[in-house]
C-alpha cells in the first residue's frame, strides 16, 4: 500500500535528517500529518478497493500540491506524513488549507453512489518553538487528532510556545485575526491579568474564563467551511475581543466598588443589557405594545375566570 511513499523506517530517518538540518542552519521546516476522516467506516461500508482508491487519490493530491523535494511517507496506520523543508509558517498554513480544500473536491464512485471525503491535517512548524524532533512529530499527530475530533475537514496547527509568551502591554504586537488559538490564549491571559492580585475573585475569574472559552469552543464547532468560515471566525474574534474589553472594564469597576449587584452586573453590559441603547424611542413604543398586548390578555383571562366562577356559583 506504499504507493510510492516512503515506509515508516525510511520516512523517520529522512525526517530526522531534515529536522537536524533545519536546526543546524536555522531553516524553516513543517511536518504535516494527513488523515482521511472516517476512513474506517468508509472501508467497512464500501470495501478495501474503495479505501485504496481514496488513499491513492489523496496520494496524488499530495504529490500535486507539494514540491518534488518534499518528503511523503506512511508513519503508521493510514495517515500520511509530509516533511516540507524551507517553508515559512504562513505558507505551511496555506499548503494545509489547499490540501483540505483539494480533498473536498475529490469524488469516488462506489455501489452506484458518489462518495465525497474530507481530511484532517495536523501541522507543526519549527517557527513555533519546537525543540526536539519527537515533540514536533507528536505535535503534528496531536494537531491531526484535534482536527479530527472537531469534526474533520480542517487543519490544526499546534503552537506550544506562542501562547505563554503573550504580552499584554500597550505596545504589544497584535496577533493576526485568523490565529484563533493565539486569540484564545490572549483572551484567557487578559482575564487572568484583569483579576491579578485579587485572590478573593479567583472563582469569578475561573467562571468568566470558562464561559468565554466554552463559547469559543462552541463557535468553532458551529463554524462552516471555506472563506465564509474564515470571515465568521474573524467577526467572532473581533466580537469576543470587544466583549473582553467590556468585561475587563466591568471587572475593574466591580472590584473597586463592590456594587450592589456584585459579579452579576459584569454580564449585563457584556450581554448587551446596557441602558445606553440606540433607537430608544422606537424600542419604547415596541415595549409598550408588548405590555399592552399582555395587559389585554390578562384582562381577558381574568374576565373568563370570573364569568366561569359566576356560572359555577349559579349552578351550585
Amino acid at each position, binding site marked *: 500500500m506504499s504507493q510510492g511513499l516512503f515506509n515508516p523506517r525510511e520516512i523517520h530517518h529522512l525526517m530526522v535528517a531534515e529536522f537536524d538540518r533545519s536546526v543546524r542552519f536555522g531553516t524553516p521546516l513543517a511536518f504535516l500529518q494527513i488523515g482521511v476522516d472516517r476512513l474506517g467506516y468508509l472501508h467497512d461500508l464500501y470495501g478495501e478497493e474503495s479505501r485504496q482508491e481514496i488513499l491513492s487519490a489523496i496520494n496524488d493530491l499530495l504529490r500535486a500540491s507539494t514540491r518534488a523535494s518534499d518528503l511523503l511517507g506512511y508513519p503508521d496506520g493510514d495517515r500520511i506524513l509530509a516533511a516540507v523543508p524551507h517553508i515559512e509558517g504562513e505558507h505551511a498554513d496555506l499548503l494545509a488549507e489547499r490540501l483540505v480544500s483539494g480533498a473536498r473536491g475529490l469524488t469516488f464512485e462506489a455501489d452506484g453512489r458518489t462518495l465525497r471525503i474530507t481530511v484532517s491535517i495536523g501541522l507543526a512548524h519549527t517557527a513555533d518553538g519546537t525543540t526536539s524532533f519527537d515533540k514536533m512529530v507528536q505535535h503534528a499527530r496531536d494537531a491531526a487528532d484535534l482536527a479530527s475530533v472537531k469534526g474533520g475537514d480542517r487543519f490544526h496547527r499546534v503552537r506550544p510556545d506562542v501562547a505563554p509568551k503573550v504580552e499584554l502591554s500597550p505596545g504589544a504586537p497584535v496577533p493576526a485575526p485568523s490565529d484563533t488559538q493565539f486569540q484564545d490564549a490572549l483572551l484567557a491571559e487578559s482575564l487572568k491579568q484583569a483579576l491579578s492580585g485579587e485572590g478573593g475573585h479567583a472563582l469569578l475569574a475561573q467562571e468568566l474564563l470558562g464561559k468565554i472559552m466554552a463559547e469559543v469552543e462552541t463557535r468553532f464547532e458551529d463554524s462552516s467551511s471555506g472563506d465564509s468560515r474564515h470571515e465568521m471566525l474573524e467577526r467572532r474574534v473581533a466580537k469576543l475581543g470587544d466583549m473582553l474589553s467590556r468585561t475587563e472594564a466591568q471587572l475593574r469597576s466591580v472590584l473597586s466598588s463592590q456594587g450592589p449587584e456584585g459579579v452579576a452586573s459584569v*454580564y449585563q453590559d457584556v450581554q448587551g443589557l446596557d441602558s445606553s441603547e440606540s433607537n430608544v424611542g422606537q424600542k419604547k413604543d415596541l415595549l409598550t405594545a408588548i405590555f399592552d398586548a399582555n395587559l389585554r390578555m390578562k384582562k381577558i383571562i381574568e374576565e373568563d375566570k370570573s364569568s366561569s366562577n359566576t356560572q359555577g356559583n349559579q349552578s351550585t
Partner: protein
Amino acid sequence: MTKSKKNHGVLYLGIDLGTSRTSISASNGERETVSSFVGYAKDSVAEKSLGKSTLFGDDALAKRMSVDLYRPLSKGVIQEGEDTVHGNGDKEGNLRAAADLIKEIIARAKPRADELVYAVIGAPAEASIHNKEAILNAARGSVDSVMLCSEPFAVAYGLDMLDDVLVIDIGAGTVDLCRMHGTMPEESDQLTLTYGGDFVDAAFRERLEATLEGASFSPKMVKDAKERYASVADSMEPAIVNFPVNGKPTTFDVTDQLREACRLIIPPIVEGLGKLVASFDPEFQDRLKDRVLLAGGGSQIKGLDTAIEACMHDMLGRGTVQRIEEPMYGGANGALKIAHDMPAEYWEQLK
C-alpha cells in the same frame, strides 16, 4: 432611572420555550438549555432507583423505561390532545409537565431568594389565548411577573434589527416567519409553517425505512443522526450511522437520505418569505429580501443559509440570508433584552 437601581434586586430572564429544547438566558449571566422532556418516576421502586421523582431533558429520555415521559410542547405550545411523538397525551399531565419544566429551567438560572424574578417567554405568534394562558399559569408559580412575546420578534429585538428584516425561526415544531418594519408585527406580518425539525425527522425516517432493509431505529436515533450530520450541501461529510440489523450493529451511509430530507424545508420557507415580501411596500421589497435572519435550532443545518439564498434568487430574484451566531440562544437572548428594557412599572402592573 439609573442602571444600578433598575437592576438592583431584580433578575431578568429570557426564556425560549421550544418543542425540542427550552433555553434560558438570565441577567446574572446564567445560560442553560434543556431538552423539553419531563419524566415522572412510574412507582416508588423506580423513584428509589432513579434517586428522584422527576427527571428533565436527556436524563428523562434516557430513563424513559422507568418514567412516565412527557414532551409537553407541540408546535411550540402546550399539548392538549393526543398528538404526541414521544410522550403522554393527557392535557393535565402536559400542563403539569410544562409547569415543572419552566420551574426547572428557571431554577437553573440560579435566582437568589431575595430577588424579584421578571421573565419574558417567547411563544409562537399563532398560539391560542388558552395556550398562552396555560404558559403564563405554568410560569407564574416560579416568577414574580411574566410576559409573552412573539419568538421571531424576540430574535430580531435581541439583534437590534427592527427595521425591514425578515426573520426565519426554525424550531422543532414550526418554522415562524416574521416581517419586521419598525413596529410590533401584526398577524399579517407573521406566518407559521409546520416544516420544522420534527418534519425533517419524519421525512428522514421515511427514507431510512424505505432504503435500509432490516435496520431498526428509534425516533431518538434518527434525531441524533440528523443533529450530528444535517446538511443541504452537495459536498457534505458522509453521514455514517450504526443501526442494528437482527440485533447486530451495522454501519450505513445515510448521507443522501438526510440531505434529501433537509432540503424539503427550503421551498416552503422561500414561498412563505415570498408571501411576506409581496405584501410589503414595493419600494422596500428588495431591502427586505437582502435582510433575512436565520435563527432557531434548525438553522444549524449546514449550508441552509446559502441554499435559502439560492432558492430566493430563483423564486424572488434576489436574497441575502444571515445566520445568527447563537442559534440555541437567539430567542432567549432577545427575550432577556426585552425583559431588561421593559419599564419597571409595566412589570408591576402585570404581577
